[in-house]
């Protein structure tokens, strides 16, 4: 039976290990925003982030922000498809200690292995619901690698951020793959009913 967890970031390994695929998570605290260019900058071009990501959640986003004086204000923050950024994930988890990746669509086997080894999870957000996400972001606290905006490294502070579904856990369970396997099992029956066999 799936559980609902209310957490605070950054996360400890034991908290992350207590999460299981299908559980629902909400959390308060810091959240880092990353996208394709941010990770190309870190991993392919060798620029270490000027801030610790230890225990942190990272979300796949490219936010619409407005600069007012020396502050950044949110306009619209939504989530993008994760699969494009799969290859950076083991590095984020293994090298930088990231404990949660938030996105939509899921990641592949290599990322799942890293989650198992180091203790991390993939949290699926509701795509298309940017209005809710934007509301749950209290503040844009800092922007690092600013020249990459809107694909810089963002530190947001969030309140009751969610619902997020644990879609890949640290015990090797991959919810999207499970759903896919079940579809494969049912398919002959569905084809038969549709009369396409």
């Amino acid at each position, binding site marked *: 039976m*799936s559980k609902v967890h209310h957490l605070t970031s950054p996360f400890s390994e034991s908290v992350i290990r207590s999460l299981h695929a*299908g559980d*629902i998570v909400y959390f308060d605290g810091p959240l880092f925003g990353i996208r394709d260019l941010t990770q190309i900058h870190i991993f392919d071009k060798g620029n270490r982030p000027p801030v610790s990501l230890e225990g942190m959640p990272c979300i796949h986003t*490219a*936010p*619409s922000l407005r600069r007012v004086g020396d502050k950044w204000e949110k*306009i*619209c*923050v*939504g989530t993008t*498809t994760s699969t494009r950024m799969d290859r950076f994930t083991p590095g984020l988890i293994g090298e930088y200690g990231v404990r949660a990746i938030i996105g*939509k*669509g*899921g990641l592949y086997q290599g990322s799942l292995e890293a989650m198992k080894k180091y203790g991390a999870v993939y949290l*699926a957000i*509701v*795509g*298309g*619901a*940017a*209005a*809710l*996400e*934007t*509301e749950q972001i209290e503040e844009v606290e800092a922007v690092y690698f600013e020249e990459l905006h*809107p694909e810089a490294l963002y530190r947001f502070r969030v309140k009751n951020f*969610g*619902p997020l*579904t644990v*879609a890949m856990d640290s015990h090797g369970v991959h*919810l*999207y793959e*499970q*759903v*896919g396997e*079940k*579809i494969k099992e*049912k*398919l002959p*029956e*569905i*084809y038969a*009913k*549709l*009369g*396409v066999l």
Partner: protein
Amino acid sequence: MEELDYNIVEEAAKQLYIKALCDLPPDVREALKKAYARETNPAARSVFEAMFKAIDIADSKKTLLCQDTGLPIYKVRIGSQYAWNGAKIKKALYEGAKRATQEFPFRSSSTHTITRLNPQTSVGPGLPVTYFDFTEDSDELDILMVPKGSGSENMSKMQMFYPQHGIKAVKKFILDTVIESGANPCPPGIIGVGLGGTADLVMKLAKDAITRPVGQRHPDPMIAAMEVELEEAINATGRGPMGLGGDVSCLAVHIEYAYTHITQNPVAVNTQCWPARRARAIITPAGNVTYGF
């Protein structure tokens, strides 16, 4: 006959893009509510609850529901009981889409296809996508605006089957395409299907299909029955909202068809995500504008 002020058309084109991004059509809201009522998976139910919260926030704050502002599409139907200048209408749509982007302001999702440079206008060569149609019994200008997001558009697929493959191959293709798209098109959305026509027309029909209000069936009973059959098959997969498992994998299947060549059997699938956005304006010759869906 007095000439219309085309600034009214431009203003409507601007307002339509903004309205479509912020105000989800009532039929889609209703379909999501019905889907939630029949969903039994607890995690899937919480996905629906987040969708409803996002819709409420977009309503109360007059803000974008989804950050993907899509590619702008305008479908225009020109009445024949009044003289309209088609070229001026086209120009007004271009300017309206551009002004919406810069004046709201929101992210332009439109970019050069090779250099990938994005001038932050939502318009450019070929954009906005515009379709013109004409009707006998009206003096009005009817503009339907659809911002098409990429998560779903990237899942589009078409196939030129042969007559010998029959409707069997067509149905299997539709189901397989939806299954392969997985969580990417932000399910549960509208599955638009085109049957017949030429290679370009079949995809246009699939796109027309996603703009039909949810709850309306095709008037041809044979096509309507096929819509129901495919909806049941897709929902039986258990893919669920956002692909995380559940009872509801699509809100509706809509099919549009055309006659085709004796040697052809084309099919196309164009998916629309759960925020199935669209907005409509009716402009009278006197310049009165009514907004709807």
